[in-house]
């Protein structure tokens, strides 16, 4: 049981948590967090694969690591866009429903 394999299994577990988050989140923010946890898990598995591929003087295979860096930046862009959409949507709904703030928000 090498270190890389351990983190691979941790990655698999994180994918499980992410999937659970995406399935059960009630609001969009919960889904965004679930997506990030799921992405983190996938990248961790990729890191474990990289670590197993250590050869030719490198302590890990650099190609997957480069892909993970690109993946993290893309995941951030996705989170930022989703958050911007969510914020704009909630401000519009808040502005659209000030009148009936009293009774249950439809």
């Amino acid at each position: 049981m090498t270190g890389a394999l351990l983190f691979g299994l941790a990655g698999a577990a994180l994918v499980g948590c992410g999937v659970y988050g995406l399935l059960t989140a009630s609001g969009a923010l919960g889904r965004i967090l679930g997506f990030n946890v799921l992405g983190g898990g996938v990248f961790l598995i990729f890191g474990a694969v990289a670590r197993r591929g250590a050869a030719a003087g490198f302590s890990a295979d650099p190609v997957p690591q480069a892909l993970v860096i690109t993946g993290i930046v893309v995941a951030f862009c996705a989170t930022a866009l989703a958050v911007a959409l969510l914020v704009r949507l909630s401000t519009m709904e808040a502005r659209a429903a000030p009148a009936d703030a009293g009774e249950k928000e439809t």
Partner: protein
Amino acid sequence: MSLLFDAVLCLLLLLGALGVVATGAARPAVIAFIGYGLLLGLAWVRLDAVDVALTEIAIGSGISGVVLLHCVRALPAPPRAPAAHPMLRPLAAAIAVAIAAALALAVLALPEPAPTRAADVAAALPATDLGNPVTGVLLVFRALDTLLEKVVLFLSLVGVWALSRDPACRGRPAPLSPEPAPAPSAFLARVLAPIGVLVGLYLLWAGADHPGGAFQSGAVLAAMGLLLVMGDQIRVPAAGNRSLRLLMLAGPFGFLAVGFAGWATAGVFLGYPPGAEKAVIIAVEVAITLSIAVTLALIVLGPPADEGRS
């Protein structure tokens, strides 16, 4: 001994992730997410991927954390969410466990002489006289992915700006926090910013041979920019500001220009002039860092507010 440390770290990671996913309320989930992100950075260090650890902590949990906290503050108290189907949680848990188990089996069943591209990278790296193989892969061997990833970053900012009600997208985004910045954060901004910029530039310079590089330094510089804005040291930049837009375009289109220049010098798109690879790569990295710093900061600041309204 280190295996024990890894095991504890994995356990903490799992608990952090469960914390993020299982809590209903938004704010604790985001705070748990930031903590989980830092632990994830540690995990990357244990996997000998220091570049990735830097990126994960700086972008994955740092700036993402800021964006998510900003979102939590902007969200009104969530309305009573309609009660989800009672069977949903157990079913989701079952599927999650099944998928995690299947993946674990797949990871365990990976072929023993692990297939790797390390040898090819080792063979091709000296030609670019770069020390850090990850930067080599990012900027030389798979340069197309990085170029397009910059366009993705640019597009997400265009997407964020498209949400503003001010059609010309020229105005100034709303300030991050409505009330004036408290004194200590102004002090922190004044003291920390120069150090942060120094660290960012160091990361950029070291990136050629040691862990570091454009993404990580860009993120640090963006963080410092945000710190200055939050400390009311500098005004929030307007979206229409011409030099800002030039900086934003420097990354993707500077890289594209170098790519087209590669046709003349190295006879192939995104090829580097033989002999002067390192200089050109560093130039590209500087352009990318500037555009990443500006774009990340502007994404966090959000869409330009309406002309009339504050």
